[in-house]
C-alpha cells in the first residue's frame, strides 16, 4: 500500500500516527478505569467518564488559582510547576469522585445482591448527576456564598459552555521523525501515560495487594475465604481507576486546554471502546486498545476526512469484535498471568 498517496505524504502519515498515539495514550489511561472495575465486578462503570471530566476541571481551577484568569501562553518548562500541582489536584479530584461513586452508586446495591442491570442503571444515573452538577457549578457557588474567581470565571449562566484554561501550553519541537516534529507536549503525554500504565500493571502483577485484586477477579468467594476484604479491594480498584483518570485529565488539558461539563462523554465512550477492543478486564489490553484506537481513528480522519473520525473508531470496534469477540488480548484481569 502506498501510504504516501493515501495520506498525502509519508511524513503526514507519520504525523497522523504520532498524533494518534498521543490521543491513544489518553484513551488508554481512561480505559484502565473501565477495565479494572470490570475485572473485579464484571460491571461497566458508566460514570467513569465523569471521573475523568472532574479531573479536567481540577486542572483548569488550579491554573486559575495559581495564575489568575488573564490568558497567557507558556511553554512546557514554564508551565511544569503549575502542571505538577494540577496533576496532583486532578488525581485527587478524580480519585475522590471515583470513591464517591463506589460508595453511593455501587456498594449499597452490591451489598443487597442487586442484579447487574440495576447497578448499571445506578451508574448511568450517577453519571448524569455528576455531569449536571458540574453544569450547575456557578449556581452552587452562589448558594454557598462562594464568590471567587473560580465560580465566576466562565460567564455566569453559561456554565455549560466550554471552560478554557487561562494558560495555553505551547508545544515545542524536540526532534524530527521522517519530517514530523515530535513536540515536548506529545512526548510528555506518551511517556507519562506509559509510565502510569507500567506502574499499575506491575502493581497488579507483583504486589500482595495486586494478588488480592486478581483473586477477587478470579473467584470472589475463594478470595473471601483467603481473608481478602472484597469491599476494600473494590474500593481500591475504583481508586486506581480514578488516579489514572486524573493523569489522563491532566494530559488532556495539556493538549486541548479546554473542557466542559460534557467533556467526558465522547472520551468515555472511546475509552470504553478501547477497553473492549483490547479485551475488557485486561490491563495490557486497555493500553493496546487505547493506542490502536487513537492511531486508527487519526488515520481514518486523515484518509476520509475529520468528520469520519468517530465512524472509523466504532466500525473498527465492530470489526475487531466480529473476528475476536473477547478483544485483541482477550484474557481477563482475572486470568492475567504473573
Amino acid at each position, binding site marked *: 500500500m502506498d501510504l504516501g498517496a493515501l495520506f498525502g505524504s509519508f511524513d503526514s502519515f507519520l504525523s497522523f500516527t504520532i498524533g494518534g498515539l498521543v490521543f491513544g495514550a489518553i484513551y488508554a489511561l481512561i480505559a484502565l478505569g473501565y477495565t479494572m472495575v470490570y475485572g473485579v465486578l464484571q460491571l461497566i462503570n458508566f460514570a467513569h467518564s465523569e471521573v475523568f471530566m472532574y479531573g479536567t476541571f481540577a486542572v483548569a481551577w488550579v491554573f486559575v488559582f495559581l495564575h489568575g484568569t488573564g490568558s497567557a501562553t507558556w511553554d512546557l518548562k514554564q508551565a511544569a510547576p503549575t502542571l505538577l500541582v494540577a496533576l496532583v489536584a486532578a488525581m485527587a479530584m478524580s480519585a475522590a469522585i471515583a470513591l464517591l461513586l463506589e460508595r453511593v452508586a455501587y456498594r449499597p446495591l452490591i451489598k443487597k445482591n442487586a442484579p447487574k442491570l440495576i447497578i448499571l442503571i445506578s451508574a448511568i444515573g450517577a453519571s448524569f448527576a455528576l455531569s449536571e452538577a458540574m453544569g450547575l457549578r456557578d449556581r452552587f457557588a452562589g448558594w454557598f456564598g462562594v464568590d471567587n474567581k473560580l465560580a465566576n470565571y466562565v460567564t455566569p449562566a453559561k456554565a455549560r459552555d466550554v471552560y478554557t484554561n487561562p494558560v495555553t501550553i505551547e508545544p515545542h519541537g524536540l526532534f524530527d521523525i521522517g519530517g514530523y516534529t515530535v513536540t515536548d507536549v506529545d512526548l510528555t503525554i506518551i511517556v507519562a501515560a506509559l509510565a502510569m500504565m507500567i506502574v499499575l500493571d506491575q502493581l497488579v502483577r507483583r504486589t500482595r495487594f495486586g*494478588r488480592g485484586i*486478581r483473586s477477587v477477579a478470579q*473467584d470472589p*468467594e*475463594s478470595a*473471601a475465604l*483467603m*481473608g*481478602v476484604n472484597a469491599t476494600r479491594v473494590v474500593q481500591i480498584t475504583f481508586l486506581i481507576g480514578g488516579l489514572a483518570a486524573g493523569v489522563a485529565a491532566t494530559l488532556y488539558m495539556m493538549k486541548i486546554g479546554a473542557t466542559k461539563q460534557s467533556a467526558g462523554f465522547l472520551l468515555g465512550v472511546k475509552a470504553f471502546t478501547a477497553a473492549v477492543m483490547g479485551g475488557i478486564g485486561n490491563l495490557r489490553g486497555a493500553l493496546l486498545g487505547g493506542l490502536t484506537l487513537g492511531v486508527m481513528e487519526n488515520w481514518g480522519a486523515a484518509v476520509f476526512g475529520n468528520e469520519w473520525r468517530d465512524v472509523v473508531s466504532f466500525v473498527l470496534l465492530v470489526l475487531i469484535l466480529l473476528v475476536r469477540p473477547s478483544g485483541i488480548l482477550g484474557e481477563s484481569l482475572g*486470568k492475567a498471568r504473573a
Partner: protein
Amino acid sequence: MLLEVEGLCVNYGHIEAIRDISFTVEEGSVVTLIGANGAGKTTTMKTLSGLRRVRAGRVVFDGNDITHLPPYERVKLGLSQSPEGRGIFPGMTVRENLDMGAYARKDKAGVAADLDRALGLFPRLQERIAQVAGTLSGGEQQMLAIGRALMARPRVVLLDEPSMGLAPKLIQQIFSIIKEINAQGTTVLLVEQNAAQALKAADEAYVLETGEIVRSGTGAQLAGDESVRAAYLGGDL
C-alpha cells in the same frame, strides 16, 4: 469447644437450606458431616466461613460469637476453608495460590515455615510450583486447595468434599493426608459424600438430611448404624 453451632438456620430466598442445625467441634478432633447431595452440607460450610447470611442461630468460635463476622475476619481468627469445587485461582501459579492462603498473615517467618509444611504434605505441588494452577489435574488442584487452606495456619480447617471427582487411589491419599494434618495439631471439619472414608477418619460425625441433622455419634457408631449403612454406605446387601 473450639467451634459451636447452635440452632443455625440459613435460607436461599424463601427456601430453607438448613434448619436448626447444632453441632460442636472439639479442639484437636476430626468431625465430619455426611449426607446426600442437597442435604445442606456445603451451605453449612459456607455459612461457617461467613459467605452465607444466617437467619437464626449462632456460630461460636473459641468462645467468640462470630455469627455476623465478615469472612476475612474469620480467617484471621483461625478458621480457613478448602471449598467445594476447590476454588483455586486458575490464572495464578501454584506458588501464588499458596501465598493467597497466607493473605491475612503478617508473620513472614511463620508463612515460610507453613509453605515448607504444605509442600512437605504435597510434594507434587513443589514440582508444579511455577505452573499456572488452571492447568493442574483435578487431584493436584485438590491438593492445592487443601495446602492453600493450611497456609492460613488455621486452628480449624474446613474441608468441603476433598475427595470429589478423584480416583480411588487419590482418595486414599487425600484421607491419609487429612489424618496427618490432624496429627500435626489442626482441628478438621470434613464434609463428605464418601461416607465410608469420612466415618473412618472422624472422631465425631453428624448426618444431614434435607437441611437437618438426623443422627450423630462417633464415626465408628455411625459406621455401624443400620440406617446410616443403608442410606450412605450402600447397605450390606
